């Protein structure tokens, strides 16, 4: 939802231990700083790195990252809220991304979505009560030859049927 601002007004829960440890920052600096002429250009990489570590982008972590990039926290939040992959709210342990664009729709993505909704008891863009699975419906994921398809976290599943998608869901632990 590129231009809709995601809810960012929640009170910030703070903890004493920083999200970005000194060793995290040192490793990150060594890997990325020389790549770009500005520090801000490390925004996407650091957001990916934080999300990789914590599964979402806690507000305090964003503040720490902004300080690290030497930009205002609002500027980093501005970037983070623009991109669909970044979660500024906690999400489930696993994320299932089902493609809903044309090639998948003509190959009956609707049946896949229905099977997921039935199995998990949730609608798209919701998380199961036990915090296990977040179900996203997204636009083309670039695997149209294997439509209908979905990403389970970072793993692509193609030529899905209502049966196989449920099997895959049950494999998530």
């Amino acid at each position, binding site marked *: *939802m*590129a*231009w*809709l601002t995601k809810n960012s007004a929640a009170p910030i829960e703070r903890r004493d231990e920083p999200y970005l440890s000194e060793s995290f920052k040192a490793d990150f600096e060594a890997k990325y700083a020389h*790549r*770009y*002429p*500005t520090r*801000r*250009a*490390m*925004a*996407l*990489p650091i*957001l*990916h790195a934080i999300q990789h570590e914590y599964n979402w982008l806690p507000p305090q972590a964003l503040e720490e990252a902004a300080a690290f*990039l030497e*930009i205002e926290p609002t500027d980093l939040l*501005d*970037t983070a809220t*623009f*991109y*669909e*992959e*970044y979660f500024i709210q906690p999400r489930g342990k696993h994320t299932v*991304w089902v493609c*809903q*664009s*044309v*090639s998948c*729709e*003509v*190959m009956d993505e609707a049946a896949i979505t229905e099977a997921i909704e039935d199995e998990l008891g949730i609608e798209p863009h919701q998380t199961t009560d036990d915090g296990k699975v977040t179900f996203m419906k*997204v*636009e*083309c*994921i*670039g*695997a*149209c*030859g*294997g*439509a209908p398809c979905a*990403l389970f976290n*970072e*793993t*692509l599943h193609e030529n899905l049927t209502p049966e196989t998608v449920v099997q895959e869901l049950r494999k998530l632990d």
Partner: protein
Amino acid sequence: MSLETPVLLKRIPTAPWGDPADRKLVAYDDYVAADGYAAYEKAAGMEPGEIINEVKAAELRGRGGAGFPAGVKWGFLPELDDKPRYLAINADESEPATFKDQLVINTDPHSIIEGILICMMACQLDTAYFYIRGEYHHHRETFEAAIVEAYDKKILGENARCGKINNRWPNLYLHRGAGAYICGEETGLLESLEGKRGWPRIKPPFPAVAGAFGRPTIINNVETLANVPFIMLYGADTWKQNGKGRPEGAPPQVPASFGTKLLGISGPVKRPGVYEEDLGVKLTDVIDRLGGGPRDGTRIKAYFHGGISMGVISQEEAEAGVELDFDIGKKWNNLGLGTACITVVPEHVSMVAMARNCARFYSHESCGQCTHCREGTKWLYKMLTRVEAGDGTTKDLDMLLELSASMGSMPGNNICGLSDGANWAIRTIINKFWDEFEAVVSKQKMVSLAVVGA
């Protein structure tokens, strides 16, 4: 007509030359064993201007959607000063129905890296960023590993075999996107690279003059650059033996369609996938010969022939002889060749649903800077949802056409081409399949409305 030997899929088993089941990663050594990096060595011994002239002579047109001649773009760069200059490789590939670049990224990454380096030498660009969409996880890992190999083998980095470029050792970095279609638009891509929201920039200035970090920048699609090593190694004339030239006696301004093209086929065909063919191949030929024809029991009604943003082609048009070349837009009333990735729409799927799907895509992916695009796409989506549910009126159809026709960088009220895509997708679907739309609106309110409007 059919392509005899593949250019881009030379090392990637694909029908009719090979079996996709045999595909495996072409690592550095395999790549070198199959002529790899010979073009790199050759280019390293040439003057930058000579390389550009060869690419210009090939009339290699961009494969990312717009079809702009690559050699001409490379010629737009200003004189050298002593500061850095950039190349941004567009591997965002987010156009719905498009999945052609990913095959090369995932299977033959060095063919792209070689093209990248030749472009860097030609244009004197010292640093390159490979902007890859966030959802390509396996592809990203494969490409990162190939970059590491290329550094190890001194293709890149300090003491690279091509020597310094723009007085610096050449570097290539992968930059991962995060799920936003608009970052495929070239200036949205640059903003995203700079760590901001991917808001396309108003042009001019064009990126060749002031691009990434305010410096001269060339942006090319993956497939465009993957063609460059062949052109370098065998020459423009050999490369031009594939594809389709301009008609006999036509002046050079008429766009030619030389070379081969990666084609994606998806939807209910027997063999969906990525193929390579001559530009100018017939659409029906692609579907029947490469795609194996429609699945049993399916009849084809329409095609999205270049991603959704180019609009649709009806089965009648296809049978009348649609050819996939750079002239397709003018001839068959659509926006152009686009990505040449084809979605087959079967008879049983409603075109109203297809229009609604497209409108949802644009309303979701509009970056929100321009009012016409932000509000217009949302409005299209709402109206089409209503029409699909059977609550539409004939007036809605007129309004849909009027609204979509008013949007775009070509009508001139929007910054980038996303809105042109929305314009053409919705308008061509409604115009070419008017009956289907009329059938759903006429059910309910049309009669009473006709009275109200009288």
